[in-house]
């Protein structure tokens, strides 16, 4: 009885290992590609951070207040991937603001860009409603997205 149990257990274990090897062989190219992309993105990020640091230093010397960051808070009850996609869309419309002088920022323009705007993600339409905007060195925007039926 015990011998038979060990036999089946060994069989299961070998099958498990075989499955692991097959799965690894099947997915290894994708994994390697993803690791490569991760490395590339990390390098790009480091490069951009260094550039940003230098820009900040030069801006400080000029004594002007410049928009440094854009913070979008999206209120959306639904799939997190769709939420990310909507956020990416909003980021696309407002990305030009970063780097501009604070005195040149038109708050009403930002409001009009987003208010009642309909965004299409995965063949579904979402309407945006701006709740509030805080304009400082870091622009904070709170937007609500509702699925249109």
């Amino acid at each position: 009885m015990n011998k038979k149990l060990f036999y089946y257990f060994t069989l299961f274990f070998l099958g498990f290992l075989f499955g692991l090897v097959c799965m690894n062989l099947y997915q290894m190219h994708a994994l390697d590609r993803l690791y490569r992309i991760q490395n590339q993105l990390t390098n790009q990020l480091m490069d951009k951070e260094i550039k940003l640091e230098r820009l900040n230093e030069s801006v400080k010397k000029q004594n002007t207040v410049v928009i440094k960051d854009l913070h979008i808070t999206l209120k959306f009850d639904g799939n997190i991937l769709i939420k990310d996609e909507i956020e990416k869309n909003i980021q696309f419309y407002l990305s030009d603001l970063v780097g501009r002088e604070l005195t040149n920022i038109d708050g009403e323009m930002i409001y009009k860009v987003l208010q009642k705007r309909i965004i299409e993600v995965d063949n579904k339409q979402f309407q945006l409603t701006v709740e509030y905007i805080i304009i400082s060195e870091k622009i904070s925007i709170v937007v609500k997205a509702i699925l249109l039926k």
Partner: protein
Amino acid sequence: MLIFLQNILYNLFISMGVILGGCFFGGIAATFNGHPPLKTMLDLCEKIKIWAIIVALGGTFPSFKMLEVGIFNGDIRGLFKQVIYILSALTGAQLGYRLIYYLEGLSKL
């Protein structure tokens, strides 16, 4: 003669198995450790190639002993056999290495 041929086949497949097994399971370990599996497999391949030959020959010393006997005692037949065994193990390791190497060729990196 038959045993000699059988041993050649043993050496070939053992060294190939050491390479393939080491690389495949090393690849799994790399996946679990969060390292790129294909790159790890290729690195391992190069590292364990020489060890695969040694494992196939059953450790280095008996083989070197036979070489010594062959060279200094004039046992040319034994010497020739050992050389063929080493070559067959080398071929098996190279085959395993090539198989893993060509797997990388499928990649669209």
